[in-house]
């Protein structure tokens, strides 16, 4: 028996479905609409993965082109968004492999345990003013995310920023759910440690 096409918490996206159908019927307006729906998300994802605006633009374009070339055979068993991110994720990894050949670093759990549990992450949940956080921490967080080995950064972006579930992320990256969980936990701890260290450092200077 085929697996249910859409998980219960992911309702079938009627707009995507309609747009895909009109694309198949030859509508170029459907192409524009689909690009408009997903270009920001794919561009930002590419930017977080590669760190360069030009790369991010290329990744978004490549993703759409590849998607539209195969869309007539897309059976909508997964949501379009997941399929697009799968293509984009592959484009990011390809780009990385082209740039440098060295094997990727692993983050060991031991390396994350230093510091005896003493971490300081400021609590901004009561701070409605976005610019305060932005000024204080944007550069620190961006820097920390860039330092993550890319396969960890990939899982962190898909899970914590894009909001995909563990199961969906496993499908997009093509790894087991257990590996998604392990990489996500290490990525979060890594970021926590970096942000905490930078925050303490800043505090000492203030």
């Amino acid at each position, binding site marked *: 028996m085929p697996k249910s096409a859409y998980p219960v918490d992911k309702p079938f996206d009627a707009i995507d479905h309609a747009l895909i159908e009109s694309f198949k019927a030859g509508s170029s307006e459907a192409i524009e609409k689909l690009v408009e729906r997903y270009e920001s998300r794919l561009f930002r994802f590419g930017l977080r993965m590669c760190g360069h605006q030009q790369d991010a633009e290329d990744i978004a374009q490549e993703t759409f082109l590849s998607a539209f070339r195969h869309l007539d055979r897309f059976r909508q068993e997964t949501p379009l968004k997941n399929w697009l991110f799968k293509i984009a994720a592959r484009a990011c990894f390809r780009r990385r492999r082209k740039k440098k050949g060295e094997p990727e670093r692993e983050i060991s759990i031991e390396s994350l345990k230093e510091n005896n549990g003493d971490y300081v992450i400021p609590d901004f949940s009561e701070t409605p003013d976005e610019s305060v956080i932005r000024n204080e921490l944007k550069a620190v967080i961006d820097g920390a995310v860039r330092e993550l080995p890319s396969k960890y950064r990939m899982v962190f972006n898909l899970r914590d920023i894009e909001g995909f579930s563990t199961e969906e992320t496993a499908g997009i990256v093509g790894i087991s759910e257990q590996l998604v969980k392990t990489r996500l936990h290490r990525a979060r701890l890594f970021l926590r440690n970096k*942000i905490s260290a930078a925050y303490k450092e800043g505090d000492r200077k203030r």
Partner: protein
Amino acid sequence: MSECGRHFERISEYLDGELDQETLVEIERHLSECPRCGNCLESLKRTIALCRRLEDEEIPLDVQRRIKEKVLECLAEESH
């Protein structure tokens, strides 16, 4: 593995609501008794919240336009 170490490994799963009932009860008991693991949980929660809040920037309009134009252009060429 020490008790802390064992729970430390699963704090993200706890945050994400992915633990089975038995492990959940166990980790909650430990968290209520162990300030160090409690601190770890809180700091991770804040880290995730911070990263999420800084991620809603719109992309520049000229980038949006370029992506759309390029895609349409390439597809038009291919269909000829």
